[in-house]
């Protein structure tokens, strides 16, 4: 029988389970390796994007350096939301030493937290052509970037002129060697609103498990895969990171998204995809416990996901249209 004097020991036991789940879950997550994950103390985080300012000019001796202002940029505010659940150690569980029941509940709720965080990150990409969607927590969320458009749009705008750019891989092709070549070219020839080439090096790719075998053949074969052409595979070594993300298979509303694939610039993706924690997931013990009541452990976290400047990721639904 677990009594009040056993509470500190029980808390250590619960903490150990949570920490073990957290360790394995964080290691398994893919979203935290793609998104820029940061801690913040701000409830509302204002992110400024600059479309590529033309600030540098020739300076003659004695002349002041030209001013650079944020006028050319757009801003967006990412506001923290709180998520949580209660794990109750009931009197019955304590009376009959139901450790295995308790372990299952703690393990399940902790896994749920990390799974939901990872799925919420995946959904940002999988709902990337929508401006709003119902997230994994069942709430309707806005999914626009600083230009008021969806993450993936053919008409990303700026406040300098009427130029637009697209980060949708032309015609949403299915994953193939040719489509990767197209995407890389789109990235390398990306122009800012001032008409300057600002190359985006698409060196990373995200696919669903459905496309795991295909992407490995495309990228790692000695010769060009899927063709009778015996040329050496020029794609070999060009893609630094391949993420076979389990959550790409279906998004949180159950839609099959296994054909979706994305390419991004690993050095700049933090400008586009952000995940901010005001409080990372923690399991807190109750401050007071009573002999006859439930002992409620609270798992909670404060988190927000943010879309920034879009050109550092390109995507395709694989639908071919």
């Amino acid at each position, binding site marked *: 029988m677990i009594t009040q004097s056993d509470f500190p020991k029980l808390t250590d036991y619960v903490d150990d389970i949570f920490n073990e789940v957290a360790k394995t879950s964080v290691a398994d997550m893919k979203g935290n390796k793609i998104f820029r994950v940061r801690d913040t103390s701000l409830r509302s985080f204002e992110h400024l994007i600059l479309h590529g300012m033309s600030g540098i000019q020739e300076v003659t001796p004695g002349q002041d350096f030209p001013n650079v202002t944020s006028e050319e940029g757009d801003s967006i505010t*990412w506001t923290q939301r709180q998520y949580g659940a209660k794990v109750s150690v009931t009197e019955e569980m304590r009376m009959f030493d139901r450790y295995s029941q308790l372990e299952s509940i703690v393990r399940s709720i902790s896994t749920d937290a990390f799974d939901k965080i990872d799925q919420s990150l995946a959904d940002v990409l999988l709902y990337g052509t929508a401006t709003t969607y119902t997230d994994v927590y069942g709430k309707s969320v806005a999914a626009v*970037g600083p230009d008021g458009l969806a993450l993936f749009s*053919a008409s990303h705008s700026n406040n300098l002129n009427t130029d637009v750019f697209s980060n949708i891989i032309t015609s949403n092709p299915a994953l193939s060697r040719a489509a990767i070549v197209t995407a890389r070219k789109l990235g390398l020839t990306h122009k800012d609103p001032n008409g300057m080439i600002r190359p985006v090096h698409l060196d990373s790719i995200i696919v669903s498990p459905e496309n795991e075998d295909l992407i490995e053949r495309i990228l790692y074969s000695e010769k060009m895969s899927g063709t009778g052409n015996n040329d050496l595979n020029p794609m070999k070594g060009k893609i630094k990171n391949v993420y076979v993300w389990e959550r790409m298979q279906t998004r949180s509303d159950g839609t099959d998204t296994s054909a979706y694939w994305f390419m991004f610039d690993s050095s700049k993706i933090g400008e586009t995809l952000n995940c901010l924690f005001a409080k990372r997931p923690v399991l807190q013990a109750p401050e007071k416990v009573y002999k006859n009541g439930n002992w409620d452990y609270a798992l909670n976290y404060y988190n927000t996901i*943010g879309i920034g400047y879009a050109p550092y990721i390109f995507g395709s639904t694989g639908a071919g249209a």
Partner: protein
Amino acid sequence: MAANWGKLYIQGRCKAFGVSWSEEDLNALNNLKIPVEYVRRGILTLKEYEQAKDSIELLKDKEVLMKEAKEVGLEATPDASAETLTKEIKKAKK
């Protein structure tokens, strides 16, 4: 995620506060070059635009509207949209 809708609206980069341009709207704006005020009123084809061209009053420049607002004694801040200013100036003039 909250974009700076006020700024985007004034710059003609969204349909309304909190409402993004749709694909059809973007086609009318970027490919057919139909002015923002018309697209905001649902005019998405060149034919509709030709018909509506003279019937819709185009909004004046924000600076001009701010001056007019001052003249009619309207306590407006630069955060007010051109539509709101136009409407309030008309009311004040009556």
